[in-house]
């Protein structure tokens, strides 16, 4: 990820902080954040999320597709991450591709676990038709803790994503192709209550810290990224960067991620409810839906 040049003295000051971080936070405190609804108008749902200096936009588009032959009774969610060069000079040209792929992989694995999101609800006709949700993520600014912010924004975005209802079949050469409703009020929401949120714990000195800033990430030896559900269940663990851990450390980190992640995830669930209400109250924007004629 974007690393900045730091002096030995700054690293020393940061690493020996015990429970007092450079801005006064404790090791398990998050920075301030906010959410913007409807950042992208021509999508089925979009969120702009900011936490500290990190800024990302997530947008979803829903389309009709064919299920994966290995999973004929499920729909699919595809993730695509774009690390914009405005976020960091490291992302110029193809520099951001490696990180983007890594983040996609972490999200796919976290969401793949059964129980997090029921993909069976996305199936329309087994083996033939299903919903395909494309989740596009754009990184505007990288201010540390990028993966966590992306995962929060993705969960929020999937929570407010409007799935158009199937109103019937259009027969084309004997084949019945599902037709989406054109009524903007006829949609369903996805049940994302149990979707995971990623908690990345870099190791700074002898301790793990939550929501690291860019400076703290530059001082860390490796990170552990945990996917955590609202009830504290850890769905995935990923190791990023260089560094080795003792088993006890991994266990301690897992416990920390579980408690912190559960708290964060429950807050996100509450925000999703508020956002859905907000959408109801606001003027509904006309959605452009795929029309197969």
């Amino acid at each position, binding site marked *: 990820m974007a690393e900045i*040049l*730091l*002096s*030995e*003295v*700054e690293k*020393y*000051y*940061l690493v*020996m*902080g*015990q429970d*007092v*971080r*450079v*801005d*006064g*936070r*404790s*090791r*398990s*405190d*998050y*920075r*301030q*954040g*906010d*959410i*913007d*609804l409807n950042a992208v108008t021509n999508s089925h749902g979009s969120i702009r*999320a900011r*936490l500290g200096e990190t800024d990302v936009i997530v947008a979803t588009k829903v389309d009709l597709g064919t299920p994966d032959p290995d999973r004929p009774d499920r729909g699919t969610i595809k993730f695509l991450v774009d690390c914009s060069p405005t976020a960091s000079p490291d992302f110029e040209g193809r520099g951001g591709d490696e990180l983007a792929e890594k983040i996609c992989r972490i999200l796919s694995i976290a969401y793949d676990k059964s129980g997090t999101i029921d993909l069976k609800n996305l199936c329309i006709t087994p083996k033939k038709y299903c919903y395909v949700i494309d989740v596009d993520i754009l990184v505007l600014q990288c201010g540390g803790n990028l993966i966590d912010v992306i995962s*929060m924004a993705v969960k929020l975005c999937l929570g407010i994503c409007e799935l158009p209802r199937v109103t019937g079949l259009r027969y084309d050469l004997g084949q019945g192709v599902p037709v989406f409703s054109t009524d903007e009020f006829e949609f369903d929401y996805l049940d994302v209550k149990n979707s995971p949120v990623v908690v990345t714990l870099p190791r700074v000195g002898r301790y793990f810290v*939550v929501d690291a800033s860019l400076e703290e990430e530059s001082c860390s030896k490796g990170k552990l990224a945990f996917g955590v559900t609202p009830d504290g269940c850890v769905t995935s663990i990923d190791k990023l960067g260089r560094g080795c851990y003792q088993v006890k450390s991994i266990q301690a980190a897992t416990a*920390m991620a579980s*408690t*912190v*992640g*559960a*708290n*964060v995830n429950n*807050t*996100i669930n509450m*925000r999703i409810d*508020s*956002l859905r209400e*907000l959408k109801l109250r606001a003027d509904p924007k006309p959605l452009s839906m795929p029309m197969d004629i």
Partner: protein
Amino acid sequence: MSAGSGFDLKIRDGNNEKNTTLPTAPQNFVTPGTIITREPGFMRGHGTYVFKDGSLVASVCGTVERVNKLVTVKGVGGVYNGEVGDVVVGRIVKVMQKRWKVDINAPLEGVLLLSSINLPSGELRRRSAEDELAMREILKEGDMISAEIQSVYNDGTLALHTRSVKYGKLGPGTLIKVPASLIKRRKAHIHNLPIGISVILGNNGYIWISPLANGRMPGTNMEQDETDGQKPVLEEIKITGTDRFAVARIKNCVAALSKAWLPIYDTSLMYSYDCSMKYECKELLKPEALKEIGELVREQMSTEGYMA
């Protein structure tokens, strides 16, 4: 351990964000292209140029200042342009032959010549070839220094020097960056605040906050014959939790002043520190707290007659 405490994602509502009180622009405020005067006989200073019809036009956003026949426009924002005598905080980015290149938030990197520093041993002598090869032992890439601007080259590059005990390599602490125009030129830029923290307000917008006196790494810039030949050891420097909270609080106060676009100097900093005491240190990260501190300091400064 209160897990994930304070985690909050606010949903932004566009209507709540309208700025209710905006400070009014001063009278002589101009924007680039504004004609200052058409009368001949005025000398153009910084921030102005002469248009083909002979009128004097502003080239930056700022306030017009006139001293006898000299007209200048003092810019409000923009990039840092150093002047001789400015105190700056910089980061070494390159080690070259007989000089270091320093990032000082200016259009060009600053230059610190090997002959412009005090040798670690404190001696006064010509720099030799051995000194040149040992440059990285004195200052290496990433190191933070406080320095003064010695001169300005023709192309605008700033030459720095640390030939005084108050400048040199900085010790443990933290850096915060603010717009350079918020740091006004004053008599002193290195302040040892009464709370046990030292703050270096670099004219270039880089502010160094440290629990050490003058922010400096002890034993790295001695006056001649003062050193006892010992190399300073980082691990022996003890920093208490109280110090850390004080540093963090000052850092958050600087952020509050910067957000409110208030000039940052020792008085405004101490005002904001006093105002911030009602909050816990980490609560200062909340936007409401920052806004409140900004407003309180602005009020206090305008009643005391300082520039707001």
